[in-house]
């Protein structure tokens, strides 16, 4: 079984209200020194068999079409997951 990981982040110029809320909560819990937090999404897509270049290309298309909205988000990574399967 293979796995492809897709990371999606809000575009830098888009305000990230959730990241701001997390940033505000950190110092309240004593986690000091963080000047900014941005919150994104991670998708894990599993396939039977190996992650081929063809699979990765299909995932890239899915990432651009469904998993992200290019108006507000960037796909920052599409990669085969090398971790334990």
């Amino acid at each position, binding site marked *: 079984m293979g796995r492809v990981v897709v990371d999606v982040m*809000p575009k830098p*110029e*888009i*305000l990230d*209200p*959730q990241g*701001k*809320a997390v940033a505000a909560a950190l110092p309240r819990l004593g986690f000091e020194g963080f000047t900014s937090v941005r919150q994104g999404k991670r998708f894990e897509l599993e396939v039977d068999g190996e992650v081929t270049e063809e699979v990765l290309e299909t995932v890239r298309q899915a990432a651009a079409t*469904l*998993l992200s*909205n290019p*108006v*507000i988000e960037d796909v920052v990574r599409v990669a085969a997951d090398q971790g334990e399967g």
Partner: protein
Amino acid sequence: MAQTQTPTDDAASAVAGTRIGVVTFPGTLDDRDAARAVRLAGGTPVPLWHADADLHGVDAVVLPGGFSYGDYLRAGAISRFAPVMGEIVHAANGGLPVLGICNGFQILCEAHLLPGSMIKNDHRTFICTEQVLTVENVDTAWTRSYSRGQHITIPVKNQDGQFVADEHVLDELEGEGRVVFRYEGSNPNGSRRDIAGISNAAGNVVGLMPHPEHAVEPGFGPDGPRGPRTGTDGLGLFSSVLGVLVS
């Protein structure tokens, strides 16, 4: 025996014969209110189902508010790929009047019928309030019953209601007069340039975050000049499209 009909009767029956589809997705909340608004404006609402790739010959379509697919992934992101949406995109590009309210607006953006997108409100909380809007474009299929610059009060209720687009797109919307509604007085969600609703270039597709279908019937709407809950300012969107369709 010959029956005589007054012009008013003719007009009323023409409006009543106008069929406006109201789409229900899994998680849609305001489809019944939207259908009721169509009926109160004099038209005939036609329920449309997300999984049915058929518009059943309707003359216009309303995508109502709610939380289709639980807002999973992004608000409207999964609904956009529902079978009925393929038909709606095709028909909208051919001139069919389409109105997206709240979640319906989000779906229209995800479907690229309207530019921009909605993100979480800047204050991160759900908001539900009566909101004053300025009607800035009265040439769209959905706003001809209003006068330019008119202030209307309708409810706004959303969590992901902050309209965003890049500066170039915002300038284009402003330059082409496609900002249809703007928040007046206060901006409830941080939307860029106080934008509450926009249209496509042709003016047949309009999306807005506030809810006109909740301000169509005395006794159930926002507070109005005639007293508490008397506001019916939302009815104009529905009477506008009926007027366009029978003219």
